[in-house]
């Protein structure tokens, strides 16, 4: 028997004016699964995330989370149900110290739902969470102004903000982009830890090598449509995928 899917996306579409950004995309996500979403630029990956979290209204189609329809809810309610995302463009609160950036997710009503109360000292919790994602406490990185942090730390801060919400499903939008190999290597264990805790993850990535090492399954998008779905090695052998990435040979 297979477990009921935690997320069911069916026939999701989005038109921006006359442009069909996403066309009838459907997939299921099993609990504890790590799903990679890949595809060339402009293929609709981020639109897919925006539609699931409903930062953008779908034109048609539906999204079910744990069997319940969420595609009509406002985005903040979807977060409260247990879906947390990161943004591709990290925009922290630049003039605040990094740990103060964590206060806003810790202020979330989801904290009430989970623990039956809010944290008394959010600063302390914030520092703990940041240490978990690699803000070395001894180096006082967490106290530095967010605007002065390098990209690697900003991405980790973004991830920590999602972790603070203790979601069931993480949607990580190009977490690895703009990072060095060493920085990616230091973030991968954090993601593995989230997986070990049984949480589901959707990762949108351009860094295929790193993604394939941790993903259970991969979806390939092209021109707003899903063109392949399956384990990484099978998907990458697919002719349609090859042509999407490398282009078709000219006659």
């Amino acid at each position, binding site marked *: 028997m297979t477990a009921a899917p935690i997320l069911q996306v069916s026939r999701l579409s989005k038109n921006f004016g006359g442009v069909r950004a996403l066309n009838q995309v459907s997939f299921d996500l099993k609990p504890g699964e790590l799903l990679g979403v890949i595809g060339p630029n402009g293929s609709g990956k981020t639109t897919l995330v925006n539609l699931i979290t409903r930062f953008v209204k779908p034109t048609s189609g539906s999204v079910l989370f744990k069997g319940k329809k969420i595609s009509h809810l406002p985005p*903040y309610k979807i977060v409260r149900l247990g879906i947390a995302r990161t943004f591709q463009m990290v925009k922290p609160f630049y003039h605040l110290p990094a740990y103060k950036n964590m206060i*806003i997710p810790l202020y*979330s009503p989801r904290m009430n739902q989970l623990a039956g109360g809010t944290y008394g000292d959010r600063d302390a919790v914030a520092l703990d969470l940041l240490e978990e994602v690699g803000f070395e406490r001894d180096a006082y990185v967490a106290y530095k102004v967010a605007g002065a942090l390098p990209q690697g730390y900003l991405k980790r801060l973004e991830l920590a903000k999602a972790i603070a919400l203790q979601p069931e499903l993480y949607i990580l939008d190009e977490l690895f982009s703009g990072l060095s190999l060493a920085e990616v290597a230091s973030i991968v264990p954090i993601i593995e830890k989230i997986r070990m805790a049984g949480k589901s993850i959707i990762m949108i990535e351009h860094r295929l090598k790193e993604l394939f090492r941790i993903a259970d399954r991969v979806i390939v998008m092209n021109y707003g449509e899903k063109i392949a779905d399956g384990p990484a090695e099978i998907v990458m052998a697919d002719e349609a995928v090859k042509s999407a990435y490398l282009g078709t040979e000219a006659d």
Partner: protein
Amino acid sequence: MKNRKERIDRGIKARSSDIFALLSWREMLYLAAPRVLPVVGCLVLPLVLGAYWQKVLLSVAVFALLAISWDILAQTGMVSLGQALFFGVGAYLSGVMNHYWGLNPLITIPIASVMGGLICTLLLLPVLRLRGIYFSMVTLIIPLILVRVVEATKIFGGTEGLSGMTPLPSKWIELYLVMAVLLTALFGFRRMMDSDYGLVLKGINDNDRSVINAGINIYWFKAQSLFIAGALGAFCGAFMTHVYMFVGMPVFALDYSILPIAAAIVGGPGTLAGATLGAFILVPLSEALRGFGGLRIVLYGAFLVIFIVALPEGIFHYLQRKYHQFERWTEVEK
């Protein structure tokens, strides 16, 4: 060799930042002075000023409160061009309650503040989704609409307005009521904006998507901020109704929208203290220039430009920096 100016925190700032401040009077004074000075100033000023400048002080305090109200909204990401809306709604509410029902000013003022806050929040609720200049335009237009409504329908005395309001029992009650509200609002809301709640409000200004992504309903928080600002503005209107003993169309005048913004910008936005300081500089300045007749507005405008060009960060930020830091020139290697 090149020189570069560097800013360094004064030693006393670090020494007074913790429990160690209690070790000496100097450190305690360093912490207390910026807080005690405005309190003492506000309480002593009414006693030392003459009758004319006491009246000016009332209008200073009212503009300071309007500027604080503007600053709270601006920090939540809503730049209002219509403080006159809050002011006018409070003024009319208080005026109507006093004129038609004969209620005491000490009852009408608090009721008008709360009701005014609610009414302004409800009026602006449909446009909370708008951001930036679009929100500002709506706030600018609503008071203009309300003026025409009063004019066209002739309600509440129409163009004549309502006069013969009950004044407050004495000028001392007037002065100390508005000073007490100003000090409470200044210190109370400064504390609020520094709390975690205030951080969420400021977060909406910086990056509202990130706040939504924390499962927070930003429209609910924006509405709360709007209510706070609206109630503050409505208090000013209700208070001035009983000072002037009159309420009429001028309460929606553009002055009440623009001057608070000028005060907040000159004083330094984002601190509330800057907004207050700005009002304490600009309003008396405008009064002092009365002797110049027609040139008054020219000189006033020139002063505004000088302040903004010379100290774009705002007077309060400048003073704060000088208080906490010193500057020195250092040599930089080529």
